[in-house]
């Protein structure tokens, strides 16, 4: 595209991909068109697909996705434009001139049927034996267009081997329709760059570098590709059979922890609209399925805030007072996709990652130590499951270093989708479940832990505590209702400065052994940033590398997935910008409804430092159980 300064040619000669006018009432701002003989006006540059949608005409799509750039490859959305010899892909055609469009002419209908027929002919397997049965976009199209037989035959043998090498993502390219959503997700949206089209002609398929198994390439396991795959070509590595086996085994004590994002989204799998939190209904359902205990991951989210916040304070103290060299800014480490992204692409910055484990892994270590002791259960008989919105959590719990309890800290990571299927398999209709509470000894957690699910949430939770620790004031006195609005919302990168001022409070009991007072922070300005989606993370990292504004930050929250965990790779399909927004609203609404909204106020957290982690945050035992280390993986593949 031309830079704007160049665009002085007559309108007829300007590039046809146009920015939509800000003011459509200006002359030329709207274009009159005819769709199926109905006259309408649309803003200049609207695609035919958008124009049809705006006017209540539905057009089938397959390669199109709201999160992604245009591909125009599946051709299912073709329409007839008067005066043009060929059909046009409506997703890719910007309207700049008056035109007459037909969306359901005989030629269009024939083409759509043919395209579905062709895709089905190469699509291995039968619908009834497919986990996407009933939720497959190709199946839906076939149904919608009355394609009920294999006109052009049907492959009898799979063309490709299923790649099950990854703990997180399973690839079955024999079911792929080559819409390239995964490629655009991996390269454009996430800038990870693992998947691309390989070969050409009828051999074209989606492949990895050198056709290596997914476990051997620089996949960060974010699973965003799964979330956008229209068929069953991509799925998460499902451990539900092993979990059923554990539940059915009377000698096993099966525990599940549930993260906030699955609770805000699982209703979608049961026909509810986006944005219905199912936390307490889920507790009941999980018990009925046969889990022995249901714990709230928010408890360890609260613990993460204490540990990670303390770590930040210590880093700052070392840097500012002791003049030691420490890695700053500190990066959050709760998103395993982000952690692996950093390990591959910016290994020189692994010291900046908080050594605090993610809430999932902290819980894992505590369940097989603290809880096992209290409950008098042999940790060898505990099976620890984590319900997460995330496919990377499956990889995380399988990291070899995650054995600090002496056992595998978390046995299985389960996604929202897989959980929903297990619940259905058990014959339970989740929305009809009575509500029940989480189990003790961890009980209820704070709203701070809850908002971990949304981008900016970890930072907001941390600030709610840090502000009270350092300033000795209530967060509510500074931020209305303790809602830190600048950290919310879906802007790719958020930045905030918090001046400490001249007045500091007393050092709270919990931290007294670490810092004598807060005088050294007087007059300082705390600089923080938040990024979600690894493409945005990359922007910040490149800025830090270049010594830019973000290199002066103290603390940065990174989430691998767009929108944060609520948009995770284990969440219900589809996940769109609209749906992410609703899930976030559900999470923030639940937070605001709670009494307890700050991690350090959580009585169970206070209790665990009194009774178990007696050396306090970042003490010896907490280092052993709640902290970890990272690998410099780099980007080269042998």
């Amino acid at each position, binding site marked *: 595209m031309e830079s704007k300064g160049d665009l002085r040619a007559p309108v007829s000669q300007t590039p046809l991909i146009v920015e939509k006018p800000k003011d459509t009432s200006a002359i030329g701002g709207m274009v009159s068109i005819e769709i199926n003989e109905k006259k309408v006006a649309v803003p200049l540059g609207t695609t035919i697909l958008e124009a049809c949608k705006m006017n209540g005409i539905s057009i089938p799509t397959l390669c199109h996705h709201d999160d992604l750039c245009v591909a125009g490859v599946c051709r299912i959305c073709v329409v007839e434009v008067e005066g043009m010899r060929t059909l046009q892909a409506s997703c890719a055609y910007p309207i700049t001139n008056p035109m007459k469009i037909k969306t359901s002419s005989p030629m269009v209908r024939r083409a759509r049927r043919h395209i579905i027929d062709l895709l089905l002919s190469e699509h291995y397997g039968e619908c009834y034996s497919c986990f996407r049965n009933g939720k497959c976009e190709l199946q839906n199209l076939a149904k919608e267009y009355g394609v009920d037989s294999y006109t052009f035959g049907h492959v009898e043998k799979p063309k490709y081997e299923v790649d099950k090498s990854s703990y997180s993502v399973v690839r079955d390219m024999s079911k792929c329709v080559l819409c390239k959503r995964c490629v655009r997700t991996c390269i454009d949206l996430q800038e990870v760059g693992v998947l*691309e089209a390989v070969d050409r002609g009828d051999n074209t398929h989606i*492949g990895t570098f050198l056709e290596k198994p997914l476990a051997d390439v620089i996949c960060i396991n974010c699973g965003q590709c799964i979330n956008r795959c229209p068929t069953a070509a991509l799925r998460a590595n499902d451990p539900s059979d092993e979990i059923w086996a554990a539940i059915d085994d009377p000698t096993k004590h099966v525990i599940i922890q549930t993260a906030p994002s699955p609770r805000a989204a699982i209703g979608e799998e049961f026909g509810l609209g986006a944005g219905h939190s199912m936390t307490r209904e889920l507790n009941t359902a999980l018990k009925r399925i046969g889990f022995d205990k249901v714990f709230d991951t928010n408890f360890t989210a609260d613990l993460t805030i204490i540990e990670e916040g303390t770590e930040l304070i210590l880093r700052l103290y070392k840097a500012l007072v002791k003049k030691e060299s420490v890695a700053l800014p500190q990066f959050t480490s709760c998103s395993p996709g982000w952690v692996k992204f950093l390990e591959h692409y910016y290994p020189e910055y692994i010291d900046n990652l908080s050594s605090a484990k993610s809430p999932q892994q902290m819980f894992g270590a505590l369940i097989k130590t603290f809880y096992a002791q209290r409950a008098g259960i042999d940790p060898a008989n505990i099976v620890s499951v984590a319900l997460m919105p995330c496919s990377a959590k499956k990889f995380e719990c399988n990291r070899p270093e995650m054995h600090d309890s002496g056992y595998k800290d978390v046995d299985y990571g389960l996604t929202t989708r897989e959980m929903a299927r297990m619940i259905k398999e058990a014959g339970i209709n989740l929305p009809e479940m009575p509500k029940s509470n989480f189990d003790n000894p961890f009980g209820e957690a704070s709203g701070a832990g809850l908002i971990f699910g949304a981008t900016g949430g970890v930072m907001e939770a941390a600030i709610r505590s840090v502000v009270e620790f350092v300033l000795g004031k209530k967060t509510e006195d500074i931020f209305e209702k303790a809602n830190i609005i600048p950290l919310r919302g879906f802007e790719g990168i958020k930045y905030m400065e918090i001046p400490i001022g001249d007045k500091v409070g007393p050092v709270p009991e919990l931290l007294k052994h670490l810092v004598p007072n807060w005088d050294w922070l007087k007059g300082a300005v705390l600089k923080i940033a938040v990024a979600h989606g690894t493409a945005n993370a990359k922007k910040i990292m490149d800025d830090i590398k270049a010594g830019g504004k973000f290199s002066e930050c103290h603390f940065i929250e990174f989430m691998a997935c767009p929108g944060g965990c609520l948009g995770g790779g284990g969440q219900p399909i589809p996940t769109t910008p609209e749906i992410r927004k609703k899930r976030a609203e559900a999470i923030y609404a639940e937070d605001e409804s709670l009494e307890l909204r700050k991690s350090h106020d959580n009585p169970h957290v206070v209790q665990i430092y009194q009774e178990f982690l007696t050396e306090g945050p970042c003490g010896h035992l907490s280092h052993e159980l709640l902290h970890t280390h990272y690998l410099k993986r780099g980007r080269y*593949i042998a």
Partner: protein
Amino acid sequence: MLVTEKNAMTEEIEQLVEKYGSKRSSLLSILQDIQRKHKYIPDFAQQEVARLLDIHPVEVFSVISFYAFLNTKPKGKNIIRLCQTISCDMQGKSAVAKSIERELGIKFGETSKDNKFTLEYANCVGMCDQGPAMIINERVYYKLTPEKAIEILNGLK
């Protein structure tokens, strides 16, 4: 690959990037030069090209896999590409193909044990008026007969 080989490869690619520029649009020219010299583009070279052009290795791999004349697997010193399109086909391609296979003791798609020859088919090479034709490395040979083809191969042995 040995460290010294890797270093030499890195140096070679750095020079190519210097020559063509570090923009994505230089990719094909860089790959063609590596292909010409090594007869394929080694794994490590792909990753180095990706690093120096600031793109992902899988993108380099994807581009190589698209073009018939770029390879990711080692090939023989002489890459024989016999045109298989209809005009050459009608002028006796099959007989030429058989005689080459017999002479080299390999089938199409294979490389001889001594790594001297790789035998492949090509689509129309633009010598339809003088077929059958083949391209060996960068040179074109035309009006082939089974005997003439063997003579040419002998000249390369």
